[in-house]
């Protein structure tokens, strides 16, 4: 299935070594792949280890591509996504075929209800009560946040975390990938609350106008996410992957004062709970991260993903200052990489690799989900470069 089995450490051991700053036999790798991109790669780059997935991928990608990508009809825009939702995140699992050491999975897959077909797209409601549109873009975008006023904020019932079937994916993955790291999604205090449950604008104004009410909701929400993470770990995950986007281009979304007041204590509670459960913690946070790094170290976060250079993050400086206390999952710059020549892209990945290896805490990973818009030659050079690194060519 991959080159990992012939190496000295298992993929899981490799991830855990990097997360703890211990020497590994080589740099671990993490690929995060968007559904349409997964179809494209299986169809045009390398088949997956599942023949049936390859057939579907080829069909879906062919229709999407011949329809002009985003110009393709809604049905071809949403089918790969639907497939990903209902097939245990096939695109991320395919990363293992490509040589990744860790796979990311969502606990609530599949869990949409109230399906309604509407003129080429599907409206659904997720387990949090968030109304979503599948087929508008490439993602199941939020179109109707369930919390609209302060009464909702106080009384909104969070989904039942005890439903055992929510965690089937981790049991299946642990059985299928016994020696790999399995990362389980959970949400931090900010991102899901703002973008999905309340709506960004309303949430931002409530931070100023109703701080106590918002904090009370966040406390409730974090306890819920801790329970989700605990059950995900019990079902087979060994990494809790907390999503919380704190940054924008070259600046935080909210002031550091506000972040420390609202996010810091709740994120710390989540991290402490995951550690008590024996899991590692990876924080996914988009955008500018530099002012947060010292706090992530204090909180005890093991790994930070995605650390995007395009948002103004300085990897050399970060590794220099925090590289012995925080593991960075980054180095395959899928944002800027799209505009690079293949040779530039290879050199960029190698530059990150060489910077990261000055300390033990680096996992070579995509700076977000790999997108289908990455030029074909860059896709080839990306995987070729990483394979060469894994094979020791650049040691």
């Amino acid at each position, binding site marked *: 299935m991959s080159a990992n089995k012939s190496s000295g450490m298992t993929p899981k051991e490799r991830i855990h070594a990097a997360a703890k700053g211990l020497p590994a036999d080589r740099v671990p790798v993490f690929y995060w792949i968007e559904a349409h991109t997964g179809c494209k790669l299986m169809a045009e780059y390398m088949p997956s280890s599942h023949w049936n997935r390859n057939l579907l991928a080829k069909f879906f990608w062919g229709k999407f591509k011949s329809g002009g990508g985003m110009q393709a009809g809604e049905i071809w825009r949403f089918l790969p996504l639907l497939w990903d939702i209902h097939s245990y995140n096939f695109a991320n699992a395919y990363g293992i075929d490509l040589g990744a050491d860790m796979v990311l999975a969502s606990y609530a897959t599949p869990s949409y209800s109230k399906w309604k077909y509407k003129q080429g797209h599907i409206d659904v409601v997720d387990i949090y009560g968030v109304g979503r549109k599948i087929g508008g*873009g490439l993602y199941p975008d939020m179109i109707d946040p369930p919390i609209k006023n302060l009464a909702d904020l106080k009384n909104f019932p969070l989904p039942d975390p005890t439903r055992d079937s929510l965690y089937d994916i981790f049991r299946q993955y642990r059985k299928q990938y016994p020696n790999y790291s399995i990362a389980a999604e959970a949400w931090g205090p900010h991102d899901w609350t703002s973008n999905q449950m309340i709506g960004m604008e309303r949430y*931002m104004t409530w931070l100023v106008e109703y701080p106590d009410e918002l904090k009370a909701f966040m406390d409730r929400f974090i306890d819920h996410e801790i329970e989700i993470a605990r059950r995900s770990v019990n079902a087979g995950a060994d990494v809790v992957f907390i999503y919380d986007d704190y940054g924008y281009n070259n600046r935080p979304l*909210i002031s550091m004062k*506000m972040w420390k007041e609202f996010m810091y204590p709740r994120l710390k509670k989540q991290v402490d709970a995951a550690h008590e459960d024996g899991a590692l913690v990876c924080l996914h946070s988009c955008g500018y991260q530099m002012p947060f790094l010292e706090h992530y170290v204090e909180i005890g976060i093991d790994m930070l993903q995605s650390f995007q250079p*395009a948002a103004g993050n300085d990897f050399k400086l970060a590794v220099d200052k925090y590289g012995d206390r925080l593991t960075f999952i980054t180095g395959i710059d899928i944002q800027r990489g799209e505009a690079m020549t293949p040779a530039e892209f290879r050199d960029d990945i190698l530059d990150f690799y060489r910077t990261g290896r000055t300390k033990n805490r680096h996992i070579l990973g995509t700076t977000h989900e790999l*997108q289908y818009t990455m030029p074909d030659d860059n896709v080839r050079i990306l995987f070729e470069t990483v394979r060469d690194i894994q094979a020791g060519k650049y040691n």
Partner: protein
Amino acid sequence: MDELKQLVIDGKADKAVALVVKLMDEGKMPDAIMGQALIPAMDVVGKLFQDGEYFLPELLVAARAMQKSVEVIKQRSPAGSVAKSGKAVVGTVKGDLHDIGKNLLAMALEGAGFEVVDLGSDVAAEQFVGAVKEHKPDVVGMSALLSTTMYMMKDVIEAIDKAGLHSGVKIMVGGAPLSGDYAKKIGADFYGPDCVAGRDYARSVVAHKN
């Protein structure tokens, strides 16, 4: 006027509205309230944002105080009596349902006295073209949050070019995955790293026309 300006800067919408009502009852003209309090207030807010003292929450509450104040002025004034400093069409491109960037730009432009035609999110190229034909704006502002959807901006610009409309309107683009280089490559006239930069560019377009 100074008090109203400060209330908007502080994002105190209810108090700002009450003061606008009082000022209008006292005979203050809408243009004076706009020009001496509301627009200067949003200029200060924009500066605080660019200087890193204000962030999205503070920007949004200030913009809302401004919007509510303007609504009251409109309600209490004869139609068309409030002068507009320019006209803008804004939208998030096809396939992208994220509207926070576009909304921030709309607020910033309204705060600068622009009439804003908001096309919403998931807007197709032909809708942008139709809006430019219909409203004849000074600027078109496009936003995208996703690296996959930013490519749709090129289609919009090409459609505006093809319709022969680009000579009469400036096109500005913004959003997390964009860069100045990319904006130049697709034929945009301006790339704004944030809504305040977009507002300032729109102002400069109108000033240049006048």
